[in-house]
């Protein structure tokens, strides 16, 4: 397949026909495999790791929508926290099911995303990245130190919120076993990746590609760059808020340090960057690689060597930036296309087989003024 949405095969009829062939088959096979995993695997711990893989793939994909506009968000944990807190508080205070409450969080986060994005997106340079960090850190500090927020909202400070247990209650997003969470996480990941794929192929996706390649040229063609960045931001934030509700319901506990902290923001971004930010499948690839590694290191070595998994993450991030600036997505796609060509017996064919060179994106050299 050719990774839907790496962007370079758009509009090519040949590429389209190829995409329907092998790529979709592989995706269908993986999906079937994931659907069947809980039937054979009953041990909760491996299932838990699968849930985390899907969850971070979901968050990373949501995050990557902002980076498709060429912007780096390092504050997405805040949106996750707001989503989780909104649905949990609605449930605790008024008994609103998190299935409904999650949408309240999503709408709130879409609005917050636009409010935060508007001042920063008009500027070039690292302003958005810095604004997103500042927003998330300040929200975290505020919640960590506020027992009762405005309008008497019981934020419970650093204690965090415990989701009241209701046993097996599907209508309230609570289950006794891991399997339902597994399937919910899987569906959420599929929806996010699918949405990202559709956006990439839509008019908005083309606009975003144009904006991140050369904002001046895009604007000269009449694209309102701030508007499309804000649309991407709103969708990304709303999805992240939904992820926050899942997080709260799955762990049945949410606290500002973990769910709003810079560490979580960086983990979300890491999954996207390592896999290939600005690509559709990248965050999923990143999560499949990183989440189990981090989780296993944390589980087996975290006791004696606190912080070791983060140390590995940091080294990996540096390695990827230095040696694979577009993430793991590109080499994997290239390898896959070579394989695809061989499967279809067209190996050795000239230009038709090798993947067309990805057009070099002219990076917006933002800081340059002289």
């Amino acid at each position: 397949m050719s990774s839907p949405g790496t962007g370079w095969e758009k509009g090519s009829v040949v590429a389209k026909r190829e995409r329907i062939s092998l790529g979709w088959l592989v995706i269908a096979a993986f999906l079937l495999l994931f659907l069947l995993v809980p039937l054979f695997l009953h041990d909760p711990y491996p299932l838990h790791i699968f849930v985390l893989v899907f969850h971070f793939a979901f968050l990373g994909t949501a995050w990557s929508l902002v980076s498709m506009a060429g912007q780096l968000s390092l504050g997405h944990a805040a949106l996750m926290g707001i989503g989780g807190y909104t649905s949990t508080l609605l449930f605790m205070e008024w008994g609103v099911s998190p299935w409904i409450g999650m949408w309240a969080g999503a709408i709130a986060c879409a609005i917050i995303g636009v409010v935060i994005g508007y001042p920063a997106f008009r500027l070039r340079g690292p302003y958005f990245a810095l604004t997103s960090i500042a927003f998330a850190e300040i929200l975290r500090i505020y919640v960590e130190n506020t027992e009762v927020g405005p309008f008497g909202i019981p934020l419970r400070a650093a204690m965090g919120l415990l989701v009241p247990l209701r046993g097996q209650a599907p209508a309230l997003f609570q289950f006794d076993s891991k399997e339902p969470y597994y399937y919910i996480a899987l569906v959420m990941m599929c929806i996010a990746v699918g949405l990202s794929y559709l956006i990439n192929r839509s008019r908005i996706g083309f606009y975003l590609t144009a904006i991140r390649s050369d904002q001046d040229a895009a604007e000269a063609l009449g694209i309102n760059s701030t508007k499309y960045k804000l649309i991407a931001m709103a969708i990304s934030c709303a999805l992240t808020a939904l992820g926050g509700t899942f997080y709260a319901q799955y762990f049945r506990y949410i606290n500002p340090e973990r769910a709003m902290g810079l560490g979580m923001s960086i983990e979300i971004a890491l999954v996207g960057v390592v896999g290939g930010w600005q690509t559709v499948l990248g965050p999923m690839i990143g999560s499949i690689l990183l989440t189990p590694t981090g989780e296993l290191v944390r589980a087996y070595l975290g006791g004696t060597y606190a912080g070791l998994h983060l140390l590995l993450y940091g080294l990996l991030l540096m390695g990827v930036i230095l040696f694979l600036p577009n993430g793991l997505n590109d080499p994997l796609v290239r390898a896959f296309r070579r394989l695809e060509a061989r499967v279809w017996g067209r190996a050795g064919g000239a230009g038709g087989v090798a993947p067309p060179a990805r057009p070099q994106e002219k990076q917006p050299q933002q800081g340059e003024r002289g």
Partner: protein
Amino acid sequence: MTLELLASAFITGLMLGGLYASVSIGLSLIFGIIRVINFAHGAFLMVSLYASFWLWYFFKLDPYLSIVIIVPLFFLFGYAVQHLLIRPMFVREKALVVEPIGVLLLMAGFDIVLSNLALLFFKSDYRAVISPVASTAVSLGFVDLNLPRLIMFFLSFFIAGALYWLLNYTEMGIAIRSVGQNRDAAALCGVNVYRIYDFTFGIGTAAVALAGAAMVPFYYVNPAMGTSLGVKSFIVVVLGGLGSIPGALIGGLLLGVVESVTAQFVPATSAVIFSFLLFIIVLLTRPKGIMGVLEV
């Protein structure tokens, strides 16, 4: 709310602001010249605090004296980081300016590595230096000031002044400024731009390490302390104007005063909301910052 209380909050805010400014000036210099955000700035600060702490712990070296060792050491450290980590990115892109997000992420990775190395080796214990200076107070009549914080306040002006002198009155400084103004023209005039980048990064790192050593007498040392001050320094440099050294000084003092004065009206923890509001207002009304030099 008496006037006296407000005045003492203002003075305390200036002391706090001096700390923010001292920490931020190096970050602003690096952005101004190399056009990259050193995301590991907070981690550099944390490492410099540890360096000063261990010098005191093992050699009983007073933190203020340790500056003599720490500043050259961190100059070399910053020089090496730019030379070995960031420079390859410029070389790869064959450009004098790289897409800033790549370097930001690289340094974010370095930040994670440094913070967690510190966590691995030093554990998350809070450590403090026992120094006779730490508990000395200076009375201004209506407010008593902690001497190390007062020193910090003056140090912010000293760092800004020293950099001003360096940039304006030395040959190296003039070369650095020329690169900041127009790197292509500077290269044409025979300035080795990459080498200037190395030096600038070293100077910026030495500046933050100087602030770090002077913080040790009144600040707890632990691996997580770099993050919060790192984020504060990002806010400060945007407030003051990315790349402007007087901007970082004024932005730091302003942030300190705003935090301290609003804390008189609302709980101190809610006061951080106001510093963020200030940040957003500046972005909306004057995006290049108070002393901004950068076109946006």
